[in-house]
């Protein structure tokens, strides 16, 4: 960017050793730099304020009220939080979300890593293959969810037709509470594999070849090279994928809304789905806002733990 040279050029001039007689001048220049920084930040600060900060602050305010969106708000203090924490359905939706993450995260990581390893080579049509696996990532969730809903349709879906033909049991998929969450996880993993693949592929291609080469010369087999060299060196990419996937996992909504709408019998009702239903179906925007803040707090704590914990296992080569 054209702004980059400016601070570099001005750094020698603001050197404290040289500037002691002109301290006021330096301070003024410091303020001026801040002003400049703010001015250049404005284009992203304005939308961030308007569409993220202001809604967040208003949702905190709404969470202290009873409000059905169409009548005036009624102050209830922390009552919404107390009610939510005492309501077993709140714990159900957090438990369902946790089930989703526990199924989704390992599968999408292992699957994405497998794909990245398989596609990390020079061969004919590699660009096409990488593109094909990435295509679901940029496809609308509604389209993907409708296709999976059809594939997994218990009565006339492709999956059950095939299972039936080879004599395997045909699960009720999204109509059976036992299978509904696995159905959602399956569709989500399929869609997000390409994203994980791309991140890990970039990580793999940046690995220092000399280290792998040295291991090979020392006689390490393919498995040992993968386990002791590739995987540890890939840990920054892994860390990024895990943090992002976990945050996305907590916000799972689209696929659930389209495929099961939280059913059957609430078996796939997740936190964001509950927030949506509370606001737009049941007119309980206060409860919904309070639940949003509980979710926010949980994601914040878990992400903080991850960032602290990364020192133990993430290797920056």
């Amino acid at each position: 960017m054209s702004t980059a040279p400016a601070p570099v050029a001005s750094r020698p001039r603001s050197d404290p050793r040289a500037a002691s007689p002109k301290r006021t001048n330096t301070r003024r220049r410091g303020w001026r730099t801040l002003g400049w920084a703010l001015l250049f930040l404005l284009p992203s600060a304005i939308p961030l304020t308007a569409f993220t900060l202001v809604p967040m602050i208003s949702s905190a305010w709404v969470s202290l009220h009873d409000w059905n969106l169409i009548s005036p708000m009624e102050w209830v203090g922390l009552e919404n939080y107390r009610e939510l924490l005492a309501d077993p359905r709140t714990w159900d939706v957090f438990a369902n979300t946790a089930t989703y993450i526990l199924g989704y995260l390992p599968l999408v990581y292992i699957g994405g890593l497998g794909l990245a390893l398989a596609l990390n080579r020079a061969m004919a049509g590699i660009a096409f293959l990488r593109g094909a696996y990435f295509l679901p990532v940029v496809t609308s969730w509604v389209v993907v969810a409708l296709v999976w809903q059809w594939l997994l349709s218990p009565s006339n879906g492709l999956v059950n037709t095939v299972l039936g033909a080879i004599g395997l049991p045909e699960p009720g998929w999204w109509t059976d509470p036992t299978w509904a969450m696995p159905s959602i996880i399956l569709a989500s993993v399929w869609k997000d594999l390409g994203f994980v693949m791309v991140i890990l592929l970039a990580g793999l291609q940046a690995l220092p070849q000399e280290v792998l080469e040295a291991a090979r010369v020392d006689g390490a087999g393919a498995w040992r090279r993968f386990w002791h060299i590739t995987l540890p060196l890939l840990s920054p990419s892994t860390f990024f994928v895990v943090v992002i996937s976990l945050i996305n996992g907590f916000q799972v909504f689209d696929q659930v809304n389209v495929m099961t709408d939280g059913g059957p019998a609430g078996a796939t009702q997740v936190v964001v789905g509950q927030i949506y239903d509370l606001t737009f179906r049941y007119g309980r925007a206060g409860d919904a806002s309070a639940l949003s803040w509980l979710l926010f707090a949980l994601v914040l704590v878990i992400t903080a733990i991850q960032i602290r914990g990364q020192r133990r296992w993430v290797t920056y080569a």
Partner: protein
Amino acid sequence: MTPHRRRAARLLATSAVVALAVTACSQGSASNDDPTDAEGSGDGQTTLTYMNFSSNGGNEENLALVVDAFEADNPGITVEVETFPYDDYFTVLQTAVAGGTEADVFELNYENFVTYALNGSLAPLEGVDEAAYKPSLLEAFQLDGTQYGLPESFSNVVLFYNADLFEAAGVEPPTADWTWADERAAAEALTDTATGTWGDYQPISFHEFYKVLAQNGGEFLSEDRTEATFASPEGIEAAEWLVEKSGTVMPTTADGAGTPDFDTNLFTSGQLAMWHTGIWMFGPLADVDFAWDIAVEPGNTENASAMFSNTAVVSARSANTDAAQAWAEYLTSSEAMVQMRLDTGWELPPVADESLLAPYLEQTPPTNRQAVFDSLDAIVLPPAIESQTEMQDIVTEELTEAAAGRKSVEEALTSAQERVTALL
């Protein structure tokens, strides 16, 4: 950086910010196009908006007939129609009202009318020609003696049957004297899993349950409306009547029941003998290649039929309340509307003068149109509470659990009763 360059950079940054602010404003002002602000423009033209769900799914053109007639009779007023599917309608409306962008005139159903009337969203309607409307329907949309809505139409649910299937199986077709036992016997006789023919279809949902509860003499809420009372012996028997159909004489959820148009497709393909659905299906069924007719829905200890009535209301924030009320009155009582509803069979006009309905009875199919009016002799209205949608969802969810065999009917109803009582 030279001072000159610095000035240029500042200019650039400033203009970027200004450009952003300008685009932000112009996006913001899009909401100022909202219809309620659209006072007649210079040429004395008034544009009204009308938001509805009832014309969705096949009756959009029929609604347009009334709009065209209104605009011809009222030069200077244009009506813009916004139609949403029922499933999304109340979400859209709630959000529009919260944001102050609701249409000048919009549609409500009976269950949601009270909520909107109570919170002051609706303009009181004065000087309405009350004599034009069926009194019971007009009264349904009053609150404390003030008229807040005009009945648009009414419709009810009857028992549709495929006469050819009955004849082929040698089973006597339904009559007004039937009870649940007769329906059950016929449904069992007509179900043929080999050919994929089902005897009966009745959704397992709140809207069927409050009705079968009444057909069995049960009460949904206590008299003082402080608790739900439907897990009574009458309620359990009524729920069993619904739930036991699933998988025996009626397809299950796993077969696809409950997905959009599943029941319509089953009936129109000639694979369903009896179907509990509304008279709004007369039009769509006009062209099927088998004989069909209707009967009053059978009851158990008593008869009870569901009746639905939608209402046109005027937004309290409308800038054109007079024109809006004129449209609401035209939509609900004009000759053009009566004519359109009789011609197309799209629900029934809410008129006081029942002689106007004579042409409706002369049309076929179905031959037994009289059953539409006979059903009105014993009607049951849905219980209406403030947390309406939540109550409906709870009852439907628990009944679905019972139908899937994951809970006993008694467990499901007891749990539903506790959860609904908690809402009151």
